[in-house]
């Protein structure tokens, strides 16, 4: 049989299409079986669910304190850019009125409006960032930590658009020259990938708590297992009134604010 160039191109084109189609079908099938296994395994395992409570009153005891921010950013090699547009931040402060726009009246605004609120990734129960990522570069671990694979991220920034909390930063520039002293225990990132607070997963693996909580002298940041009824964070959430950021979105934030 004689194969012309045209036939060859046609056959190889169809072959490639078939491979791509199979890949897509398999991906959808995987997704369905994942869901099935999630449902069956859930009642058996008593999981750890990491969460955090931030006591805003304690947090503002020392004016202009930024120990936790410094601790986090130096631990995780977060670059410091002076240009606000290219800023990378894992933990930072915003005025109360921007963080809880709905939780105030004109009167509370007078007092609370400009008070600083500490922000980190909420490590949601149902993170929108995980759903939108086209390459599974960000996902929720079994212990609730929402994490990123810096080597898989393609830098499409869909997760940044999807996050209703503005928790994610993009490396617009090469971050390495903007790191004062590199912590060799944690990877630096490359330009073109997204990053954010990781609840100190690398420290959790060693049995340590997050760097921000550890650095806080006022003990304003309490970290622990939300699944364990007698954990410190659960006791705190039982005894004091706490709110989450935009719970009405149904994302299920694991960071609580004691106001």
């Amino acid at each position: 049989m004689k194969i012309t160039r045209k036939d060859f191109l046609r056959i190889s084109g169809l072959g490639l299409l078939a491979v791509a189609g199979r890949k897509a079908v398999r991906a959808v099938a995987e997704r369905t079986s994942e869901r099935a296994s999630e449902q069956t395994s859930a009642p058996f395992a008593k999981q750890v669910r990491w969460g955090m409570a931030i006591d805003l009153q304690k947090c503002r005891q020392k004016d202009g304190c930024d120990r936790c921010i410094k601790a986090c950013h130096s631990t995780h090699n977060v670059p410091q850019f002076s240009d606000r547009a290219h800023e990378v931040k894992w933990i930072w402060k915003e005025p109360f009125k921007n963080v809880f726009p709905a939780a105030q009246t004109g009167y509370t605004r007078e007092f609370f409006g400009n008070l600083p609120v500490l922000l980190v990734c909420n490590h949601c129960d149902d993170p929108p960032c995980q759903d939108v990522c086209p390459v599974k570069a960000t996902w929720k671990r079994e212990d609730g930590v929402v994490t990123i694979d810096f080597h898989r991220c393609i830098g499409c920034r869909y997760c940044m658009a999807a996050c209703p909390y503005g928790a994610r930063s993009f490396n617009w520039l090469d971050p390495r020259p903007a790191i004062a002293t590199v912590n060799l225990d944690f990877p630096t990132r490359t330009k073109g990938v997204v990053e954010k607070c990781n609840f100190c997963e690398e420290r959790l693996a060693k049995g340590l708590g997050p760097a921000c909580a550890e650095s806080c002298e006022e003990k304003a940041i309490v970290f622990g297992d939300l699944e364990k009824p007698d954990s410190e964070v659960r006791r705190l959430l039982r005894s004091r009134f706490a709110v989450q950021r935009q719970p009405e979105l149904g994302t299920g934030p694991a960071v609580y604010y004691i106001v």
Partner: protein
Amino acid sequence: MFMFEKALTGGRKYWLWITSLFLLVLAGSLCYVLQLTHGLAVTGLSRDVSWGLYIAQFTFFVGVAASAVMVVLPYYLHDYQQFGRITILGELLAVTAVTMCILFIFVDLGQPTRIVNIVLHPQPKSVMFWDMIALGGYLLMNAAIAVVTLTAQREQVPAPGWIKPVIILSIPWAIGIHTVTAFLYSGLPGRSYWLTAILAPRFLASAFASGPALLILLCLALRKLSGFDAGREAIQKLAVIVTYALAINMFLILAEVFTAFYSEIPAHEEHFEYLFIGLNGDRHLVLWMWLSTLLSGVALALLLVPKWRNNIRLLVVACVCVFVSIWLDKGLGLIVGGMAPSPLGAVTRYVPTLPESAIVLGIWASGALMITVFYKITLSVWEDN
């Protein structure tokens, strides 16, 4: 390549046009190399406005691609013979537009070398996964349809029967690509400008106005440059399609404005305020958005009156108005307006930089290059017959 040699003959003006487009593509490529070395910091994007011109152009051109259905549907489903020739031109415009979309997504990536991860680690929960399938499928379908029909015309034989189901499938698929593209945005919590069920209908309406408007302009340009006449009736029919789509689009925008401002829910009002009035002292998009509104109004007036619509000169003015108006609304306001104010209420100014604009212009030029070559080949086939 398929009848490519036909694109290699032309007069001095033709080659001048091709050369200038090549130069623009070259300039864009050089700027892309700059972006590749320094990172996306060479663009005007920021932590708050993390999507801009690239993604907006992508969205706009998905619309242009989808609009091919406005000639395919009347011709194949209603046997509207006047669209016989224009249909191939529409399909080729779709092929070009989808290719441009893919390029716009590519230049927006922070790590373009990892693009294969989309195939290696697909995430069916991501709308981007479905958009990739929708756009890829649409590109292949339209390329196949155009090539098969044109080959049949060259050989002066009827097109093979198997292409018919592909054509029929491409009709709902066209609606699909723009719907899925709207779902990229309309399913995100915390972005209230996009979080609306009429985003997809709005996308379709604006697409069916801007796409056929562009097709009318292209056909009229062809008549001037080559002697090819799409036919007065076909052009007039397209103009009616543009009129309806434009009116529906304006109606949908007004419905959005009513909901936002009558409900007075701040999160919904803010984005419109940012775009049309200015927010926190930032008014840099206000002029453009009002220009878009004005152009839509002028176009609608010109198109509604049959005497004006049937006047080719006024029709050209109307089509340019429609195209520019929707480009401003969709290729600029939609994305930037959805990003500012940010979820934390920050209004960050976004102005595309020179390299960013050059890259966009380069992709436009490559689109113009593609459409020139495609139309040149098509017209030569028709002339030979």
